[in-house]
């Protein structure tokens, strides 16, 4: 049977594997065959992909298969897989081999999922285009002169071109949802604390979440169900009983909130048209649409770009060239540090460490860091109030489709503005998903757009329900 991994869903692949229409080895090979080197999707394609698939085939033969057994997945190269090179897109970790498995990897290994490779990313997940990777930019399969989004750009492209059937990324300010929208796939960010961060290379610890990419909402849900849950190695994970108790039954009538006041500036006209079409479609599906106010949402981006650099500057101080990673030697210990960090970190990472150190330094701490932390709670409260009136909130995922390689590289602020719609979920800890909503034409090429749906904390089920209806997955 010919395997078309660009179309095949995880559930379909599972059924074919069980029926013996093809083997996990054949499926893995089909994915490997789709890795187009011109796109620069992976920092490392693993050398044991077919060996992993063989083990999965045995599991299937023995009747021990579950949904993810033998399913090829791309893993963002900042998530640790024991023994595999894990660079975080940085030169400072160029030769670093993970010495343990991330919790999500441990859980996926148990099911017999197959890891294809470590997908490209902006260095330490800082960026929205993969242009900050020390290993070169990943190209958008819809137009190779454009970026795939980021920071999890490699994971998004891997799914889009069928180099895997699903992928893991990390999302600190939109790093899964934005590339998902730029590449025409589905990507989500779970509620903060639902997926363990143990083994994800830290950026902004109070924002980071590992979450999946897939071609469909169902594919996302299958991976999410496998990786979620309490973990003693991450004290910020939500206890399982708390999560399970919080699951509300789907209400008869779902109301969708639209913060129209936030869509007035900086959004491309055709992106806005597409968003309005999505609203009409949701109305047709029987949802009630209500305009809402999120009075302080416009501050979310500034809050984000104060607190995450602060957290990142603290997290990244560990790369000292002593315990792991590369060392650039000077004449004394201080020079060792200065050279190791100066040469090991890329431009954007150096910039954010400097910014984070500034907002945390004496004299500025109150005006920036403390104020941002207080404002974060205010924004959280705005969302809570909004969710008293509506069940979910929608926005475009990004104010524009995929931009040109190099277009925003030299203007950090312009690049940051790409996160306008996605950061608020990380600031408030709420779950959100980006689903393909259509296309915008640029220079004769159709570029994918995404609709973002945000739900209250721990209500991932609601996200899945609405987004499946939106994509027509339930009627299949």
């Amino acid at each position: 049977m010919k395997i078309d991994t660009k179309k095949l869903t995880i559930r379909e692949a599972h059924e074919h594997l069980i029926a013996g229409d093809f083997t996990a080895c054949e499926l893995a090979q089909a994915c490997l065959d789709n890795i187009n080197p011109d796109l620069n999707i992976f920092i490392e394609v693993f050398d044991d992909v077919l060996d992993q698939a063989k083990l999965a085939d045995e599991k299937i033969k023995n009747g021990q298969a579950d949904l993810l057994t033998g399913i090829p997945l791309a893993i963002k190269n900042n998530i640790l897989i024991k023994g595999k090179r894990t660079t975080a897109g940085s030169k400072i970790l160029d030769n670093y081999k993970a010495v343990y498995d991330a919790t999500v990897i441990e859980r996926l290994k148990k099911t017999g999922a197959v890891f294809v490779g470590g997908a490209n990313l902006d260095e330490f997940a800082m960026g929205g285009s993969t242009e900050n990777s020390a290993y070169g930019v990943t190209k958008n399969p819809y137009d190779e002169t454009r970026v795939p989004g980021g920071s999890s750009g490699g994971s998004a492209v891997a799914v889009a071109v069928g180099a895997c059937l699903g992928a893991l990324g990390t999302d600190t300010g939109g790093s899964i949802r934005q590339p998902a929208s730029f590449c025409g796939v589905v990507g989500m960010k779970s509620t903060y604390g639902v997926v363990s961060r143990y083994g994800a290379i830290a950026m902004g610890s109070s924002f980071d979440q590992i979450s999946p990419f897939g071609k469909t909402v169902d594919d996302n849900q299958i991976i999410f169900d496998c990786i979620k849950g309490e973990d003693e190695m991450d004290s910020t994970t939500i206890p399982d009983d708390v999560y399970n108790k919080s699951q509300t039954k789907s209400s008869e009538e779902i109301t969708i909130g639209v913060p129209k006041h936030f869509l007035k500036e900086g959004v491309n006209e055709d992106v806005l048209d597409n968003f309005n079409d999505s609203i009409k479609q949701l109305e047709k599906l029987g949802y009630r649409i209500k305009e809402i106010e999120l009075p302080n949402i416009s501050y979310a981006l500034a809050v984000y770009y104060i607190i995450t650099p602060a957290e990142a500057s603290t997290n990244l101080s560990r790369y000292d060239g002593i315990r792991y990673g590369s060392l650039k030697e000077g004449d004394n210990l201080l020079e060792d540090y200065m050279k190791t960090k100066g040469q090991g970190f890329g431009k954007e990472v150096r910039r954010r460490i400097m910014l984070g150190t500034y907002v945390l330094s004496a004299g500025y701490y109150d005006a920036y860091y403390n104020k941002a932390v207080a404002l974060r709670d205010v924004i959280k409260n705005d969302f809570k109030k909004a969710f008293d009136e509506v069940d979910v909130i929608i926005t475009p995922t990004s104010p524009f489709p995929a931009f040109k390689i190099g277009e925003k590289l030299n203007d950090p602020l312009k690049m940051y503005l790409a996160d306008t719609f996605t950061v608020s979920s990380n600031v408030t800890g709420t779950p959100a998903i980006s689903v393909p909503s259509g296309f915008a034409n640029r220079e004769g090429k159709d570029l994918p757009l995404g609709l973002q749906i945000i739900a209250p904390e721990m209500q991932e089920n609601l996200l899945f329900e609405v987004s499946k209806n939106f994509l027509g997955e339930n009627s299949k």
Partner: protein
Amino acid sequence: MEIKEIENLANLCRIDLSQEEKEQLSKDMESILGFIDQIQTVDIDKEKKVAGDLRNVMREDEKPHESGKFTDSILSEAPKKENGYFKVKKIL
């Protein structure tokens, strides 16, 4: 932002910067700070200013693993080591 201030920050961060980058960073910081300064216009209750809702959650320091269990695998990634230790340059 003054170059002197950039240099001071770079020293705090232990990052070696070229003169050219110092100048570029001074411009970048100005533009980013200009953007994030918008939060100064929001008036928040004095009470709320002290600290946010988020707190660090610590586990009990108990049940240690067997001593030395991970030493080899951890040291396998160290740039310099000697007799089961990380090796650093003389400090004093």
